[in-house]
């Protein structure tokens, strides 16, 4: 039972990260397209200024949750995808630098340079997160000890590349929804235009990803057949995609919430299909795959950490809600 709760908690933390840091990554992806000059670009960055750092904390907290609950998955996936993860770290560092230091010096070339770094690192991060997401769905060649040696040839398979595309377009769309909500006038018109275009691309990418999932993981429907109520998650995803179509260009607040729903339910659907697996093995592996039982911490540790989680996140969500309200009219 406690294993299942932790699976839900970890999925929720990752979904929280994808929704929250997702929109500021998306702002970065569209930064050079929506902002046409330095003034506009500075304005776009100001919309995420007070919140991006807090959004990134979700990644750190999700990492912490994985260490404490499923240390074997943390160990296997982080060491297996060593170079890819280091690349993620370097991009996160460059992106953080661009947001921290861009506004410190009032010089046109300085701003231009950091604008490109900000946008480039955001796009690459969205791509890498999509690739990682797809590779976890697809599985990795685990050895008998439950470890594997990642390589670019292994990671950059067609399914994973599709995942990368999905990551970029979904988060760009999410970023456009944020910008439509937080800007006015010409900037908002432009953001809405990208939002509309990206809606079609995102919908197509999601459809392609779902179709490909059935090819790569023929057993993906198993959970949904065994527990039909789980289908509510993908049904919600479809509803969110439709709601986004309905509200975008009309009600930016609801459209943004729908867009957040799309991101969250995509991760939720993947989690529902994956359960109880965390890092499946590719066919022919010497290991059956890491799941919430064989990769978990001992029960005592799980229960203590769950108590911490409930108390801690209760406090966090309370003040985050209030803080987001302070920035509501920015």
């Amino acid at each position: 039972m406690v294993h299942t709760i932790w699976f839900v908690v970890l999925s929720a933390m990752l979904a929280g990260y994808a929704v929250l840091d997702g929109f500021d990554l998306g702002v970065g992806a569209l930064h050079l397209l929506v902002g046409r000059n330095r003034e506009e670009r500075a304005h776009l960055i100001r919309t995420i200024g007070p919140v991006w750092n807090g959004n990134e904390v979700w990644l750190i907290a999700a990492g912490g949750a994985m260490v404490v609950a499923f240390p074997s998955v943390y160990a296997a996936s982080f060491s297996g995808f060593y170079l890819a993860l280091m690349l993620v770290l370097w991009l996160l560092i460059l992106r953080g630098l661009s947001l921290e230091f861009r506004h410190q010096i009032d010089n046109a070339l300085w701003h231009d340079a950091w604008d490109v770094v900000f946008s480039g690192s955001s796009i690459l991060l969205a791509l890498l997160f999509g690739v990682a997401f797809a590779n976890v769905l697809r599985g990795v060649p685990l050895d008998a000890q439950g470890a594997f040696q990642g390589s670019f040839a292994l990671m950059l398979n067609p399914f994973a590349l599709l995942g990368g595309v999905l990551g970029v377009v979904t988060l760009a769309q999410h970023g456009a929804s944020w910008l439509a909500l937080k800007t006015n006038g010409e900037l908002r018109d432009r953001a809405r235009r990208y939002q509309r275009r990206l809606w079609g691309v995102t919908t197509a990418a999601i459809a392609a990803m779902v179709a490909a999932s059935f090819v790569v993981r023929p057993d993906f429907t198993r959970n949904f057949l065994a527990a039909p109520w789980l289908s509510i998650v993908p049904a919600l995803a479809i509803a969110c995609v439709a709601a986004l179509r309905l509200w975008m260009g009309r009600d930016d607040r609801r459209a943004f919430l729908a867009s957040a729903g799309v991101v969250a339910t995509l991760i939720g659907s993947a989690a529902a299909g994956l359960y109880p697996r965390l890092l499946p093995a590719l066919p022919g592996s010497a290991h059956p795959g890491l799941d919430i039982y064989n990769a978990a911490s001992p029960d005592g540790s799980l229960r203590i950490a769950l108590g911490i989680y409930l108390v801690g996140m209760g406090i966090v969500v309370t003040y985050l809600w209030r803080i987001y309200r302070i920035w509501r009219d920015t």
Partner: protein
Amino acid sequence: MTSAVIAGRVQFAFTIMFHYLFPILTIGLGVLIGVLKSVEFFGGRTEYGHAARFWARIFAITFGAGVVTGIPMEFQFGTNWARFSHFAGPVVGQTLFMEGVFAFFAESSFLGVFLLGEGRVRPVVHWLSALMVGWGAVLSGYFIVATDAWMQHPVGYQIVGGRAELTSLWALLTNPYLRWQYPHVVAGSIVTGSMVMAGVGAYYLLSKRDEDFGRLSVRVGVIGGLLCSLTSLFPTGSFHAERVSRLQPAKTAAMEGLFETRRGAPMAISGMPDTDAKRLLDPILIPDALSYLMYGTASAPVTGLNDIPPDEQPPVELVYYAYHIMVGLGTIFIALFVLSALALWRGTLFTSKALLWALMLAMPFPYIANEAGWVVAEVGRQPWVVYGLLRTTAATSTNVSGGMTIFTLLGFMGLYLLVGALYTLVFLRIVLQGPNAATTEAHY
């Protein structure tokens, strides 16, 4: 030791020592900014609020650099130290997770409110957000030091199926090792924050500009520095040293360069350990002092390195020198702050060029002292990663080679050179613009 172990250790040491430069200052400044804002809020002293705004700008860039260099620390547990994560994750994961949930969210979210919210939120909320930022910094340090304390002295666990399981969260959070280690770490951080505050203030006084702000910063810095440099020595430093000597005799022997087990063991003021000849070259010793510190009596025997098996000894020279650098610098800080505080009391500090120059030039040294202290703690723990339970050589990832790590280490070196250069550039720019500069662009 394989190249994967060596490269993993060098990469971790490099990334954590570089990272730690920033939290030292955010913990110290976080507390001091909380003090400044409280003086403004309760005493109605607007100049303190004005000073808090300036120091918040320094805090913000430091926090930003700390965040971007901090994420690689957590990641490396998984990438390079997979067997450590597997073994110790169920325990150390608790404190790492708690740092994220209890401290990091608060620090980052309230920093946004503190930096950008003035005028937008009520003064009481702005004051509270300053306190939350400082509290978040101090608390985040607590969870990290608690993680380290468990690696130094494992408590509240049992071994189940070849890995550690937490049996008592309370024991983990009240580890006896932590009791003086954590206050010592916080005191060292506040010394750093105070020295930077006093040093920047001294710069303004010596340059004869923004002198009101300069006097305020020097005053707050000298008082904070005096209190915390004394606290670093006693009680936190001396009691922690006593505790280490009981729990980790090999570390203490290396710190003191003590080779022979003896009664009336001396403390080395200076000298150079010669690990081949197994003696301390050219030493200046205080007779009996080490026995007295550890057991309260000069006749107590203290174990020397000759009686500790070589495969349970840390690298002696590094631990010995790092310890002496820390203690030597700490002593100099106490002297400098005592002299400055006396001059402040007599009203001559703000015109004393010699003391102001000394305060300004002393700014880098608390960083060195803090880093040296951690070298003692971490290198002194070797060859264990979890003391007595898991050797460092058995903690690495089996699927990451030395070559891969050296490649990423070079990448970190290049990137951190950029981080360091940018941070220094912007730090100097903020100081040169001064406390009254209208920030060219609204923050962010």
